[in-house]
């Protein structure tokens, strides 16, 4: 599941957008108000199946995870003593602690990856979507460009680890060079970025293409009459007009990139050194290998808070909150 939905980010598409949508709808469920007399019991029955599953399989494990984060917790022997919030404090403020160093180092790498991946995860799909929009043939191009997004992390990384070998890898053979794609910086980050863009661009492209088709045809006609070419229309018309969709794609890509795990775990092993180890890899290592489950859980929740803060910040900026 960490190798699961986060990669594309749609598992978290809604909350960001929705927080506002919720507030903006004070008159929600007006139609249902008449039915209110029938009692709220039946409404609960609708929600119940989800709540049972959610409570049992999401809320309870999260609560238990928080409980673990407040203890020394060795997975072999379980709870070995209450420590309260001290693990959180150690992670955040104690520079001499190895765990804290890992936390900040990992968080730094994760934020770096968000910085170097999100622009590409927005721009590349937009260019493809715009190309398809202008050239036509959507029922041919769209599924073909989308297909890599259906592959599993294990399949994607097996293939790329093979073709990115320094000597004997297909990419270097074609380039006639010996670039250390997976073993030296900055190549290791470039490879992880490249693989991510290759893997997940199709998904964003579909959404951006749909955004383009929503635009009134007249804006493009007007540009054509002005004699604007494909490229200049792209910058003068397409980009500004689909901005709301771009923002949305940017936010879901940020969330997906923040959860980076499988690509470095399976491609570079987090190296060279620890230079491509994101926060998720440290959490994984501490929790399962070093058996510091409490520390790992605390790192995970701090990561969740950081992600929530960044997503809300982006949302706020996109809404013009920065002005």
């Amino acid at each position, binding site marked *: 599941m960490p190798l699961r939905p986060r990669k594309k980010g*749609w598992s978290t598409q809604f909350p960001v957008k929705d927080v506002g949508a919720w507030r903006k709808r004070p008159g929600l469920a007006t139609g249902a108000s008449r039915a209110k007399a029938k009692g709220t019991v039946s*409404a609960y029955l609708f929600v119940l199946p989800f709540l049972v599953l959610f409570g*049992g399989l999401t809320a309870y494990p999260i609560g238990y995870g928080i409980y673990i984060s407040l203890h020394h917790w060795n997975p072999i022997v379980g709870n070995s003593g209450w420590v309260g919030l001290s693990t959180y404090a150690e992670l955040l403020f104690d520079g001499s602690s190895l765990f804290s160093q890992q936390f900040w180092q990992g968080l730094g790498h994760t934020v770096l990856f968000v910085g170097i991946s999100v622009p590409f995860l927005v721009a590349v799909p937009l260019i493809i979507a715009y190309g398809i929009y202008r050239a036509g043939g959507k029922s041919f191009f769209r599924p073909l460009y989308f297909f890599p997004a259906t592959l599993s992390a294990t399949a994607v990384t097996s293939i790329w680890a*093979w073709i990115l070998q320094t000597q*004997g890898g297909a990419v270097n053979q074609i380039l006639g060079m010996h670039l250390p794609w997976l073993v030296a910086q900055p190549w290791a980050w470039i490879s992880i970025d490249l693989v991510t863009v290759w893997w997940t661009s199709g998904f964003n492209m579909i959404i951006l293409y749909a*955004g383009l088709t929503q635009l009134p045809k007249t804006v493009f006609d007007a540009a*054509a009459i002005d004699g604007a070419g494909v490229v200049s229309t792209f910058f003068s018309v397409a980009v500004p007009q689909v901005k709301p969709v771009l923002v949305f794609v940017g936010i879901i890509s940020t969330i997906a990139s923040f959860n980076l795990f499988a690509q470095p775990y399976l491609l570079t092993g987090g190296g060279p050194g620890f230079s491509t180890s994101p926060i*998720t890899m440290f*959490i994984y290592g501490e929790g399962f290998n070093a058996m510091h489950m409490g520390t790992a859980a605390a790192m995970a929740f701090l990561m969740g808070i950081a992600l929530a803060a960044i997503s809300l910040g982006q949302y706020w900026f996109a809404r013009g909150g920065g002005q």
Partner: protein
Amino acid sequence: MTNFHLRRTWMTAALLAAGLVVLYFPLAWMVSTALKPLSQAFDGQLIPAVPTLANFRAIFAPGSASPVLRWLGNSLLAAGASSLLVVTVDSLCAFALARLRFPGRRVVFYLIVASLMVPFIAVLIPLYEEFSGLNLLNTYWALILPYGANAFGVFLLYQFFLGVPRELEEAAMADGASRFQLWWKVFVPISIAPMVTLGLITFMNVYNDFLWPLVATTSQNMHTLTVGIALMAIGQYSTNYPLLMALTLCSVVPILLAFIFAQRQLVEGISTTGLTL
């Protein structure tokens, strides 16, 4: 002028086609390597000099202890059942959140928002202990239920339901329909597209998931295809690339077939539902 534009269109199409060549090169290389014997794995040729099916024979050999077809069945069952579960449960919940008013709705909503920010890694052990306590590890329950609480799906359908015209609902209520009938006769039929999209996306994810099924299934017969193949591929330390690529190809083919079958629905579904967000 039109000629000029036509040429531009063709140029764009040519560029897009070139992009496809680049995009599909890694997959072509996987197929090519899978058809090579180990001794030629490094020859740098896209077209194998002497194509061989030896790698596939090794995987499907009757003597091989790996029940590849059983794994495929497990994957399809787990992915199919969780998709149906998600679609049903999420639709009911989204309907209530979008169209009914009841105390605690806001609490439910924010709980779901918050849950989406928690990385899965934080809940792996608690979830595992829970399934162990219920004695459900290594059963199909363990491969299906954890995907059932899909908060994302609730949001997707919630957003969709918000946009359903009020008149439809009022007409049904005037006919004396119950709330369940309202959901079943009005909301379900008009939300087929987003529900199918949600189902397909869930299917893809469950099929491709690795860590949870790896930890939750202990017997070989209960592995999913992704897990089973990964286990076959991981030799103790070293790698036989042709065999690994053949294994990877085996794991890709079912999802490719499913994609060919459902691609129109999936692509259109993401287009339409993606914009209602």
